[in-house]
């Protein structure tokens, strides 16, 4: 602490032009040789400039306050409302889809093969949005995923999940990686985990991919239930695709 404290005071004196020629000389040499030290000095210089932009700082403070107020007023009750609405909707969809699926399963001839439909509608081109900080394994997994080395990515994703099963983003991309390696059952397990979690941003995609996986492994009745559910949820991200695939399935 003492050394750091003294170093800090030295930087302050440098920035206030209070160093004597000898001190300045050794300070500049240290800047040249010691990258960490140079970064400290540069950060302090930048801080001085940026903190003085008081109007922008004040604007950010007010936007932050507005965000907090918005969250208090809107988000909490809305989440509750959506969940209740969703639960009812899901229950209704499952009931409706149950009858529809029995009808389809028994009576309607296949217009398209499940595999063809899967290939048409499956699109894995999803950009990664994971927080990489503090996890070297994750960075490695992301490289493998981006290079389409899905099996390697799966191994690392699974390592991460074994110590942190709540990492939904990792679960999602592990699921997609399983699809790429054609291990659809493992993919479905992970998508179920995401859907069950109920409080994340990947639910809609997980439902859609799960439905496609079900279709691909030949569980058409269950897949149709899922597509029906998605097609009835007008704000669902995959609503349009679900309607299309149901048409293709001749529903």
């Amino acid at each position, binding site marked *: 602490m003492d050394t*750091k*404290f003294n170093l*800090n*005071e030295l930087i*302050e004196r440098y920035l*206030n032009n209070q160093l004597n020629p000898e001190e300045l000389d050794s300070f500049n040499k240290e800047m040249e040789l010691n*990258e960490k030290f140079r*970064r*400290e000095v540069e*950060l*302090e210089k*930048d*801080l*001085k400039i*940026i*903190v*003085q*932009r008081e*109007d*922008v*700082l*004040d*604007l*950010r*403070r*007010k*936007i*932050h*306050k*507005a*965000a907090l*107020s*918005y969250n208090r*007023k*809107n988000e909490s009750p809305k989440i509750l409302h959506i969940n209740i609405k969703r639960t009812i909707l899901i229950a209704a969809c499952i009931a409706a889809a149950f009858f529809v699926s029995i009808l389809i399963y028994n009576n309607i001839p296949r217009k398209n093969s499940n595999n063809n439909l899967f290939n048409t509608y499956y699109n894995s*081109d*999803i*950009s*990664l*949005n994971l*927080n*990489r*900080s503090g996890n070297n394994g994750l960075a490695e997994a992301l490289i493998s995923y*981006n290079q389409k080395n899905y099996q390697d990515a799966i191994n690392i994703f699974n390592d991460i999940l074994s110590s942190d099963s709540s990492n939904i983003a990792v679960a999602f991309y592990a699921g997609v990686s399983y699809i790429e390696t054609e291990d659809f059952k493992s993919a479905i397990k992970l998508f179920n985990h995401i859907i069950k979690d109920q409080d994340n*941003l990947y639910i809609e995609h997980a439902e859609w991919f799960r439905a496609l996986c079900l279709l691909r492994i030949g569980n058409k009745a269950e897949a149709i239930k899922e597509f029906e559910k998605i097609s009835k949820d007008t704000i669902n*991200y995959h609503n349009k695709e679900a309607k299309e695939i149901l048409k293709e399935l001749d529903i």
Partner: protein
Amino acid sequence: MIKISEEEIIRGLLLRDEKVINLIYENYFPLIKRMVKRNFGNYENAEDVFQEALVIIYEKIKNNDFRLRCSFKTFLYSVCRNQWIKSMFKCGREYQDKFFDVEEYFVISHDVQDYELFDEIKIKEKLFHKYFLELSKNCQRILKLYFYGKTNSEITEIMRFKSEIYTRTRKYTCKETLKKKIFNNPEYKKILYNKTL
């Protein structure tokens, strides 16, 4: 949605009027949130994009460099959209071809195209301000006084601290807290990493 005219928005932003900022947030944040989420972002990303867009527009208004040739909603949406695309691009993926807009009738304003939204200084400013605002009120005051060139003895007097030694220690602790948060931020690390290349 509480109605507010575009003139009121522009004037209110320029004056950093809290009521206007609250109304802008309530009226337009849901749209931006939907756009970001539809394009694989999360709530925090949406908040970030929204804040930066408002700062950009504020600076344009302040510098008398703001011409609204479409509705404010379209303009704001476009700034946020561009910002989110660039932010994703910085993460290594190209989004532009596959961008899902939330409202199909939107004509994306070309007015925003010239804006360089992601220069280094902007990212630094965003991070520094974010972490600065997370400090305690006292820390913020001490550091502001310091960055405005006040000496330790002046800060001691203004803050009514018991001694200069105490001021130096407090100032050091506040500054270290701030610097630690900044150095640990992935975006900042990326800037430093790019500089060393």
